[in-house]
């Protein structure tokens, strides 16, 4: 698509939109899981995000488009090490990558592999970066993540946790940075997601088709207007999109100055104990999400209200499932929130 559907023109789905913005402001949140039926606008929202984000500066000539301001520590990739050792580096302005990982992608395409072409023509052993390298500093989008092959899931978990991709195959031995926000979408009706993978995602939102017929009609009407004349439709929503873009930029600046008070941290821990969420990841995510939300809303301090807003998406997928208990995790968390904080 030359012009993707504008982010602001999505009808409803506020929970998903807010979670996407939080992930854009605070990449450390650890990604986003979007669960729900097909045709609820999940992919549309992710693709719209790519057009929404402000461009990023990257080292010119680096295959991994690294950040020029990054500390020249051991984390630097081989390209940057080569470039930075010489003269002053040049930089480019690039759009933030949003990379699709198709189902059934081979390990080679994801991790990268020996560049067969160069090997054949020049007889040199060169690494050809894969999708993980493409997604560095951006987003990696996996539609139907619950149907992904197991071995790929293992790879992704490993890379997402360490922030770098380690290649030890076909006589190649190298590492390159791969820090990305993982966005997965899927329909739990068609297969469960492994808990190990589920836990990696920071936030989890559930999307539904709007139940209101009026809203549904509005969805079709906007789609119709967009398909007829994408450019005009885009122009119509450009203002709203620019507002959201400004909001993201300002929130990123404010984020560093926001601290989370001890009382709020205490409250977060309280909730995690009450719902018996596994591990410490829950508290961390709660804290980070609340802080990002406060930054987005332009508030001076992180309060209990922010915690309340993000409690369900931050913890929903971290509860130990009881196969004989039908209550949805979201409801259990809401119950705990009202008992504790009201």
């Amino acid at each position: 698509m030359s012009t993707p559907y504008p982010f602001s023109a999505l009808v409803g789905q506020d929970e998903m939109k807010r979670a996407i913005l939080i992930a854009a402001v605070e990449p450390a949140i650890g990604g986003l899981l979007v669960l729900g039926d097909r045709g609820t606008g999940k992919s549309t929202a992710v693709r719209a995000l790519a057009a929404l984000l402000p461009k990023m500066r990257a080292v010119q000539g680096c295959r991994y488009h690294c950040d020029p301001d990054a500390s020249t520590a051991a984390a630097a990739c081989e390209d940057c090490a080569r470039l930075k050792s010489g003269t002053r580096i040049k930089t480019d302005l690039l759009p933030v990558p949003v990379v699709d990982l198709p189902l059934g992608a081979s390990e080679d395409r994801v991790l990268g592999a020996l560049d067969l072409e160069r090997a054949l023509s020049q007889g040199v052993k060169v690494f050809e970066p894969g999708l993980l390298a493409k997604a560095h500093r951006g987003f990696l989008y996996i539609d139907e993540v619950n149907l992904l092959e197991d071995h790929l899931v293992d790879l992704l978990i490993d890379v997402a946790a360490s922030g770098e991709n380690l290649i030890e195959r076909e006589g190649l031995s190298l590492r390159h940075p791969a820090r990305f926000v993982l966005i997965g979408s899927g329909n739990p009706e068609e297969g469960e997601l492994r808990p190990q993978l589920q836990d990696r995602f920071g936030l989890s939102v559930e999307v539904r088709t709007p139940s209101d017929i009026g809203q549904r009609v509005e969805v079709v009407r906007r789609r119709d207007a967009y398909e007829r004349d994408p450019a005009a439709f885009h122009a119509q929503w450009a203002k709203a999109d620019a507002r959201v873009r400004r909001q993201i930029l300002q929130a990123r600046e404010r984020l560093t100055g926001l601290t989370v008070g001890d009382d709020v941290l205490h409250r977060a821990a309280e909730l995690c104990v009450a719902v018996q969420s596994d591990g410490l990841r829950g508290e961390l995510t709660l804290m980070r999400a609340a802080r990002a939300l406060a930054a987005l809303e332009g508030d001076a301090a992180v309060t209990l209200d922010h915690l309340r807003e993000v409690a369900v998406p931050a913890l929903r997928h971290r509860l130990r499932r009881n196969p004989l208990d039908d209550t949805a995790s979201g409801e259990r968390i809401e119950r705990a929130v009202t008992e504790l904080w009201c």
Partner: protein
Amino acid sequence: MVLSAWPPAWQAAWLLAVDPVGLGGLVLRGGASPFRDALLADLRQALPPATPWRRLPLNVDDERLLGGLDLGLSLAAGRPVHQAGLLAEAAGGVVVLPMAERADAGLAGRLAAQLEAGAGMCVVALDEGLAEDETLPAALTERLGLMATLTATAMVPQERAAASGSTSASALTAPADSTAPPAPPMTVAEVLAARARLAAVPCDAEVVQALCATAAALGLNSMRTVWQAWCAARAAAALAGREAVHQADAELAARLVLAPRARALPQAADGDAQQTPPDASSAASDANESPEKEQDSERRREADADADADAKAEGAPDADPRNDPRNDPRNEPSDASRHAETSVQALQDQTLAAARAAIPPGLLESLAGGVPRTGGGSGRKGAPARPAQSGRPLTPRRGPMRRGSRIDLLATLRAAVPWQRLREAERAQQGLPPATTALLLRRDDLHLKRFRRPQETTTVFVVDASGSQAMSRLAEAKGAVELLLADCYVRRDRVALLAFRGAGAELLLSPTRSLARARRALSSLPGGGGTPLAAGIEAAWLLGCRVQAREGGRVVLVFLTDARANIARDGSGGRLQAAQDALSAARRLRTDGLRSLLIDTSSRPEPAALVLAQAMGARYVPLPHGQAAQVYAAVSAAVSAPAV
């Protein structure tokens, strides 16, 4: 162009020709037949001459599909040779996917991504699946708007073919019940004219609202489907040469896009009693309808009669919660639509009635039975045996590069090195310059890594739900299935559930890992009636064979029964015949090497059950006072036991 003169499959094809991008494609269900060939030929003729038309073989590898390096040619030439991808070649045209029900999730994902990327292509998927759940992956079904079934009975050869001497099979295609003169197939000029008119058809809020309401009433949640329905209505109007979308167009869209996907049975908008599907097989099924089912429809009729008229008019989901899995209070239409004008109301009612009448008979029955059909649920369904990517390494094998395979470099070198001198000499003989590469490789040298695929196990529970089984027994079976499912998280196994009672067996849950779905299927497990043991065993055998053949996985069949068969294979009563039929069905399990476990649920161990277990080569576990946990323990032991 008069659309109504054509059978539904052709109507769909014409609409697709007019708006290929908006509609995404067409799923043609039905086996190979001259009609199908004729339909494809007609569609191809109607498209502008330069439109690409590509057949996509199922075993296409990524290099060919997406474009990339042609390894064989590159090795021969000693320089990289590129090939264009099939999908790139098909941009702006049609991709025909034969045997679509065998497509795996990977191929479906790539096609879906291509359709999303707006390359302007559409897909005609030829779905030759026979079984209910044998259909293409859901990711693809979702994106192909139109659906039609090709049945030979819907068409009779016309005299026109003989008279005109034309060999065009399209002459065979007029519907039997139509008195209209068989129309000539659509021409390129008509298509181009309709495409030109398409942009002029305005977005009609009332029609969109009618389509939205119809989709909601049929339990369809995807907004994409509604959008495709709108595209179909718009294309129909453009074809007819109209400036605006009419009632007939909305109805046609509802028939071709919404009805085949129905997940819930809408209430008749006019408060009529249940409409019976217009085919003979349903009559047969009505005849031996179980009393339980009769009550069910009875209850529904009452619900129909006294349901609140408003709710009906807005196409609220069916009164029966089992028919609409997502029946939560938030799905209630809002007040906004309560004040709709009567004309809008009429339009909605007629659209819904059209959709209702077009629901395929088989689907209608399964909806009426309260079991929502789940087609193409699992992403791995129909996946061809692809080389495993991980697991225990086996010896490398010589072979061409295929999708999902990796070169074993060492083995490849080992194969190539001895021939180097000879190959250099050959090149010199042919007058070629000395090679630029250090090593002369041929395609035959390539060796691939091989791994042993970790096998996944599918546990099929075959539950006796007849009257002789106490209700507590059923509860145990349910408990055991739930416990096993909880395990599946860890072991990535799958569970399926078959129940037999009354006249036959029913697949309540096709193999799945989904807890949500399994729980729903379990909660709707009915009880009571006779014990058609033979039918149950046969259904388990069919399912087991299918799973083993298709995924190459292991199958463990778990029977929970007291083995007191009293319904024979042909549906007649009689204990003796029933027991004999059950035994012969059981022997078939043994000959086909399906592993099984028989849990005897009668109050004291039953000799008949032991005999049956021996006949099928099953482990026999008497559980007179079983608890769910005990059943689960027995099954776990059987599942984790090494294959014999």
